[in-house]
């Protein structure tokens, strides 16, 4: 096989799929976003320029969705990281040998569950009258608490599930990364009289954090497209308390209004926002690392 054949064999299907499932839809989304296609009407669509984008920033529901997406992103990314960096040292210090393997295995389990399945499970657990969480709370004389049906609790309650799935996975990975820190470094620090706290904050975390950055970015992408998850748990409710950008775009485009053009504009905005956000953070973190 020549190099050229090899190239074609592997690149043509890859780029073919990318074109078909990424670039082509992206192109049509750009096209639709500049028009006013409304599925409820059989009138031909006309060019409206940036009209959809202007409308977006005057639409309180869009601004709410932007806020909810931001809150969900911050809650789940920071929550997962906090959990990982708090629990990993405990495991690293106390569990050795098979106990550590068992801990890692258990930490990975929630992430292995399909997200839809996990969402249904938690929806039942959160249920005000049938759920196990309120049952357990009632044993110690608390509750019943309303989780998903309370506008103030709904988003944090969903974030908890996401952190449960991703935070423990990150914990397992950080435990493995902590193992990679050379023993000599740790012993030297201990000989110099470093406390456990400063050992971690000054030596272990700075060594491990850059290695875990790709995980943080993957988690961010995951948090930005949590449509399936939220759809099962609240479908954006109560009201619009958990309506993220992708959820709102769905309701506008497919769910009830049929405003494909407006939904396309919102989706494009989301793509651009994600790219800007990731690039900005990536650069900032690299500068900090150097």
């Amino acid at each position, binding site marked *: 096989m020549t190099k050229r054949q090899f190239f074609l064999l592997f690149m043509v299907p890859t780029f073919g799929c990318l074109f078909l499932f990424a670039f082509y839809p992206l192109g049509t989304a750009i096209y639709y976003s500049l028009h006013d296609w409304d599925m*409820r009407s059989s009138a031909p669509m006309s060019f409206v320029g940036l009209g959809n984008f202007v409308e977006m920033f005057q639409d309180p529901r869009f601004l709410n969705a932007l806020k909810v997406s931001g809150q969900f992103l911050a809650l789940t990314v920071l929550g997962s990281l906090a959990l990982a960096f708090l629990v990993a040292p405990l495991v690293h210090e106390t569990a050795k040998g098979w106990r550590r393997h068992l801990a890692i295995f258990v930490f990975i389990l929630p992430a292995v569950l399909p997200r839809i399945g996990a969402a249904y499970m938690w929806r039942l657990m959160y249920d*005000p*009258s049938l759920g196990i969480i309120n049952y357990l709370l*009632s044993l110690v004389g608390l509750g019943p608490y309303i989780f998903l*049906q*309370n506008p*103030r609790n709904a988003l944090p309650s969903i974030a908890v599930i996401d952190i449960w799935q991703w935070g423990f996975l990150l914990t397992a990975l950080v435990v493995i990364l902590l193992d990679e820190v050379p023993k000599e470094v740790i012993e030297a620090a201990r000989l110099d009289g470093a406390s456990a706290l400063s050992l971690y904050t000054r030596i272990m975390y700075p060594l491990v954090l850059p290695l875990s950055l790709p995980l943080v970015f993957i988690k961010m992408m995951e948090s930005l497209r949590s449509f399936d998850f939220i759809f099962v748990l609240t479908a954006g*409710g109560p009201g*619009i308390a958990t309506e993220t950008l992708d959820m709102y775009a769905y309701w506008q485009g497919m*769910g009830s209004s049929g405003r494909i053009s407006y939904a396309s504009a919102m989706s494009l905005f989301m793509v651009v926002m994600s790219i800007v956000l990731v690039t900005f953070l990536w650069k900032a973190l690299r500068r900090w690392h150097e």
Partner: protein
Amino acid sequence: MRKVLLAAIVALTGSALAQTVTIDVLAQPREEWTLMERYIPEFEEAYGVKVNLTYLAENERRSRSRLDASSGAGQFDVYYIDDANVAEFGANGWLVPLHEFYPEEFEVEGFSPALVGLLSYEGVAYGAPFMTEGDLMFYRKDLLEERGLDVPTTLDEYLEVVKALHDPPRQYGTATRGLRGSGMNVWRFSPYLKMFGGSFFDEDGAPVFNSPEAVRAVEYYIELIKHSPSPTMSWSDAMDAFAAGRVGIVTFANLKMDTLFNPDSSVVVDRMGYALPPAGPAGQISTLSAHGLGLSAVADMTPEEREAAANFIGWFTSQTSELRKVEGGQGLTNARTATFESQAFADAYPAEYGEAMRGMLQIQELTIAQIPQWNEIGDYLGIKLEELFTAAYANQPYDIQAALDDAVAFANRALGR
């Protein structure tokens, strides 16, 4: 030799293709469709037609059929339509009028006229109805007797009974729909709006559901929500809670009550009473809804395909099919007057229930607005109602007037007023 064989194969498949007429039907997964699927091979054989069914849940079914028709794709020959989206389809000319295609042998005049009227837009009928639903009150006889309570006939009495039977978390007074959506909480709320003297639109089509009457109706509905297991129940959540014996009294659609009559899915089979929904200050009203099948005006059909699609609609909504549904335990989802008056129907359901249901047919009214923008406006109002319900349930402050004013402003924008 090879060439001859190839030609023979092409000729054979060509003629086979020409002989089999295939029709594509978009449907919604419902128990009576599962039942009727058993008989579809019979239809296919009798008419020489192959039927392809595609099932999508209610909201997805609406958006998929809209996409199929508006984009001109025309994948489906037969659409599943309902009273909430017939206006959109009629206004855009996506359906063939019912009387232009419904086969004579299946008797279009047998349908309840009210239901055909419901699947019409601007006086033209588009859908062949195969089911209707309306409201009935279902209550726990044992609980009412235990506490010496009478069966309520007014909304005030109803609320008193709800409160008297409320003992959470063991037992809830009622269970009512709070989940947002034009076909969800707004649908359930709509008869209350009318019974308190309010309406969605005035005679000129201006939205007026922020009137003092509407505010009172929402106040009342919030009381019901507060005595429910959750403020965002769907229809099936509410029914499951009642079937599980955790709820005292409910008013909801009679449709699919077959689940409550089934001892496998209900622990309250022998303890249920049925009555008409309670009356409000402005009268006693039950919702009226119909689902039906329509013939696509968008799909590119040959005359044979069009005939096959029309025959399928006729066969599916025929008297024979309706009686089969009664015998198969799905008798409540029918649309022909003769079916509800039949001996088979009388044999299949308790006399008390049949009486309540016949009474229901007398007080049924269309409670939503049949305009193309209804789904969008209803969905927005549904969000506002859900916000009120969940805030009230969590003892947080809420402002009914402000929420309704906001929804009315949205409706005005959607209507271009």
